[in-house]
């Protein structure tokens, strides 16, 4: 009843006015979710590089824009920076045999220092009045359109790439590396390629977030892997995973949904300090859903056979 009373007291106009900003943010985070999907689902590799490469994307962009580089070019630089981060994690894992999760953490930690060097401080602002940015929350309407266009192009590109011979090889690497080697594919190469593509997307996302909020800071990537995972899972649950194109699309839709959910909970009075805990619990719940379902089924249904 409390909740109903609370919703009745909400000002719908207030919520509606915040919605476009959340949608813009959601689309941008959706690009990040695409990257997480590639490593987590396609490569079966829990890549923690992203917390670092997300901030790197933002830092590179802001510093370059401040140096007079056009924003689209700075965005491309963020792509390259992300790829480089993915390459490092990939090499740590394949060449040096460091376990995947640790390889990602190591790159992420080193990127903290790298980002500090790039930004030459803890944060740096870029004035949207002085520089032409690709997206900015000061202009929400055009930001949504631009972000949607970029996301749409990326979804189409990814759909095409993962349908090619090379992309199929990457998908197969996550599904069965033994079989892939027996078919003459170098699994080290495909894994590194996948990590580079994933972190390139994360770099784009970081770059666009930095532009939309008009600054980059060291903290901006912290916990982004969890947000990416939450978006991915919401996308899978709500929008299905039937065909490949829809699966990529559902990542972006999932991220938008996640943003709207967060906006709602915040509006309902949850302190923003609790946001990361809330996100983590959401992810734990969603990831454990198959197991919980199994447990419930096991209890309710009589077991077949003996023992």
């Amino acid at each position, binding site marked *: 009843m409390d909740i109903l009373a609370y919703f009745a007291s909400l000002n719908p106009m207030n919520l509606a006015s915040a919605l476009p900003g959340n949608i813009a943010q959601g689309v941008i985070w959706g690009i990040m979710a695409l990257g997480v999907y590639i490593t987590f689902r396609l490569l079966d590799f829990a890549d923690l590089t992203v917390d670092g490469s997300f901030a790197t994307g933002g830092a590179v962009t802001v510093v370059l824009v401040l140096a007079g580089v056009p924003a689209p070019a700075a965005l491309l630089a963020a792509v390259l920076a992300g790829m480089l981060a993915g390459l490092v994690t990939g090499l740590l894992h394949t060449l040096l045999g460091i376990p995947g999760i640790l390889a990602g953490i190591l790159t992420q930690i080193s990127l903290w220092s790298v980002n500090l060097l790039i930004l030459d401080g803890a944060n740096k602002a870029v004035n949207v009045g002085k520089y032409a940015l690709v997206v900015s929350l000061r202009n929400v309407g055009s930001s949504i359109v631009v972000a949607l266009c970029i996301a749409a192009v990326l979804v189409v590109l990814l759909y095409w790439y993962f349908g090619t011979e090379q992309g199929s090889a990457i998908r197969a690497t996550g599904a069965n590396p033994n079989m892939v080697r*027996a*078919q*003459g594919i170098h699994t080290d190469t495909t894994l590194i390629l996948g990590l580079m593509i994933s972190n390139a997307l994360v770099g784009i996302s970081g770059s666009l977030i930095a532009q939309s909020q008009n600054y980059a800071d060291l903290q901006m990537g912290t916990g982004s892997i969890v947000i990416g995972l939450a978006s991915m899972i919401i996308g899978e649950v709500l929008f299905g995973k039937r065909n490949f194109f829809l699966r990529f699309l559902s990542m972006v839709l999932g991220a938008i949904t996640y943003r709207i959910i967060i906006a709602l909970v915040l509006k309902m009075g949850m302190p923003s300090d609790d946001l990361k805990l809330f996100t983590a619990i959401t992810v734990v719940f969603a990831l454990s859903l198959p197991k919980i379902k199994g447990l419930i089924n096991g209890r309710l249904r009589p077991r077949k056979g003996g023992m």
Partner: protein
Amino acid sequence: MLRVQNLTKVFNHNTVNERVALDNVSLTLDAGDFVTVIGGNGAGKSTLLNCVAGLYPPDAGSIFIDDANVTRLPEYKRAAYLGRVFQDPMMGTAADMNIEENLALAYRRGRPRGLRWGITAPERVLYRQMLETLDLGLETRMQSKVGLLSGGQRQALTLLMATLHKPRLLLLDEHTAALDPKTAKKVLELSDRFIQDGNLTTMMVTHNMRDAIRHGNRLIMMSGGSIAVDVSGEEKARLTVEDLLKMFEQARGTEEEIPDRMILG
């Protein structure tokens, strides 16, 4: 076709668990040879196959396929010469991908993989025809995930993938051991047909003495990391399980026990 020279492989070198898995093994296969390899656990048959496939480098000796020295060639590069079917039906195919995608991956074995589309229309026609020859109804399920297939169907598909392009050497690693007897028989018959039709040089590891006798034109029995028995041609054709047991005893001395799994089955 395949030449193995003085191959030695030692696991856990210089530890208490040191085990000589292959002890100076030499073996030559002529083109079209179908060799069955038999032996107890730890006899070295799987190690021999894995060394040929390139899973790990030997400690000594060399391996030639078609006069090309492949001893130091990594597994993924050696794959261009080989077709492989594994003991575990899960191992040879990607469960999350559909039948035609799996075939397309195998179709490009040993060829550069670029940015062309993963499956072409003429390929689909070819795959459909080839799947029809399996007589398992898979030609109507080309878009189905391989994970939905039974173990026997997956082994049949892996066999097709291994022979899609004629391999220089076909390696069958106890590929029917995980199947029920009826399915195992079917997959073995299918293997025989593929090998005969394509005149494929083949090495088939098996635990089953009867299968080893019934199939192929040559039989090798391994024991303690070396080849204890090597029969072919007429002699192989006349071989019985009793003969094989006698040969095994002669080669190794009576004190060594013959594993039940080898006799039964």
